[in-house]
């Protein structure tokens, strides 16, 4: 389900104590929805043991 500006506006106020205009909230919603959807889709391939802290070790392992 697409993230709506109203949700962003309420989240900003309730979680962060910030007031956003409806227009600004709608702009934010578009970008957040794009990133959220893409990350959620990519996350389907995540395994229980995928550990973000091994990134630099991975780079060292991949050197020629």
């Amino acid at each position, binding site marked *: 389900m697409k*993230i709506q500006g109203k949700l*962003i506006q309420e*989240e*900003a106020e309730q*979680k*962060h*104590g*910030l007031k956003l205009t409806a227009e*600004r909230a709608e*702009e*934010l*919603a*578009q*970008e*957040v929805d*794009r*990133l*959220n959807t*893409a*990350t*959620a*889709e*990519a*996350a389907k*391939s*995540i*395994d229980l043991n*995928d*550990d*973000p802290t*091994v*990134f*630099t*070790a*991975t*780079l*060292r*392992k*991949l*050197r*020629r």
Partner: protein
Amino acid sequence: MNELGPWLESPNNIPRPNAVIDDLVDATLIDVSEAIRRGGVSSVDVTRACLERIDRQQPRLNCFASINAEGALAAAERADQEFADGTWRGPLHGVPLAHKDMFYRAGEVSGFGSKICKDYMADETSQVMARIDAGGAIDLGPLHMTEFAVGHTGAHEHLGYCRNPWNTDHIPGGSSSGTGTAVAARLIYGSIASDTGGSCRLPASMCGVVGIKPTYGLVSRHGGMPRAWSLDVFGVYAQNVEDAGLLLEAIAGEDERDPATFGTPEFAVDRHAAPDVLGCRIGVPTREAIFQAEPALQPALDAALDEFRALGCEVVEIDFPDLRQIGALSGTVLLAEATAIHDEWTREIPEQYAEAVVWRLQQGRHIPATRYLQALRLRPKITESFVSEVYGSVDAVFTPTITMPVLDFDSAQNFTSEQAPEVIFETTKCTVWANYLGLPAMSVPCGFTPDALPIGFQLVARPFDESLLLNLGRAYQSRTEWHRCRPPETDGEPA
């Protein structure tokens, strides 16, 4: 006239001209370094010549945040005295440089291109500046940067616009705007900057110089302004690849204060070996729409590939994994981390930021923590898969650094906040993926558009393969002259 030379052959066997003081403006970092080491010129002479050029060009280009003429000349005098006393610290001894205004120096202001931190004074010196200082380089003053490294044009509400030296109506790129401009205009012999999504490569391409973003973890980030911890790297700018390699060597290496550098391989450049790229396989993702350059750029990019073929490289077409997905994962990490860094200030004193900057720094509040961590959890796996898939068959990937010609300020800023994400994507789509994957990348000048603005290509290699990038770049520059082109000192003068 003082003789600077004659020179030995350069490492890539191009005989250098017999340089004289009047040629300092066209001298490279290595030219000047050798001249100082041979006693043909003093650091004070070279520093003074740079300051004179800066004095002439700063009003037109606005590439320095501030100029430390007095301190630089005092440091140059110390460097000369040290040399006279028998100490030569290495190839940076007495060479004038300047760096993006984001590296801490104990007791000195680092402004980050911001109003908020215009008086920010760190209590310790960054690792990269400590290394550059230990090498004996002279620092001419902090360079212009976009506010907190946000933005890609060089337009600046507080500091004024930094301008492209090839045409001051045009942008130099960002966020290392002053770095690209100052190196291209021959005001300094090299610079240290940062790269979170392309800042060591985009201004390099737009200004016609070399920029290198090293592998994540090769260079310590301790003591530099954070933009997004997981994506930030510190890299180098120079007139040519050889100089850039020398600077990278100076700043690379393990640092106990930056865990990302733990176990990082030793990095050293053999400048005296001719670059051997025979048989090197260069992959070109021709079918990837993201890398389709506009017609004004394509002939220069094609010609660059022809040079690599002439050098004995094998140029092959390759398919690429989904870069839009990598771009989105990178964006998720960038927005979440940048918002976390700026949360308090954007909440308490938003009026202290430029409107467009605070706009971008607010976005991450609405990225769920779960998505942020998923984007990070995917990173090792995606990187491993990408390296295996792409670098299993080629040694380096060739792309444009940016697919569009250098924009003028009006065009570059002519978008609504709603259009901003797409504009940012279009600007950084060729570069940002290397940050998420942690790969080393380099932008090299390869020609000019019909309206005399620079074009650059990008080479990206597997982790810690900076030596290959340097070899390819040096070999390319042994056959081309684009890196020797210097912008006019006044607008309207033919390039």
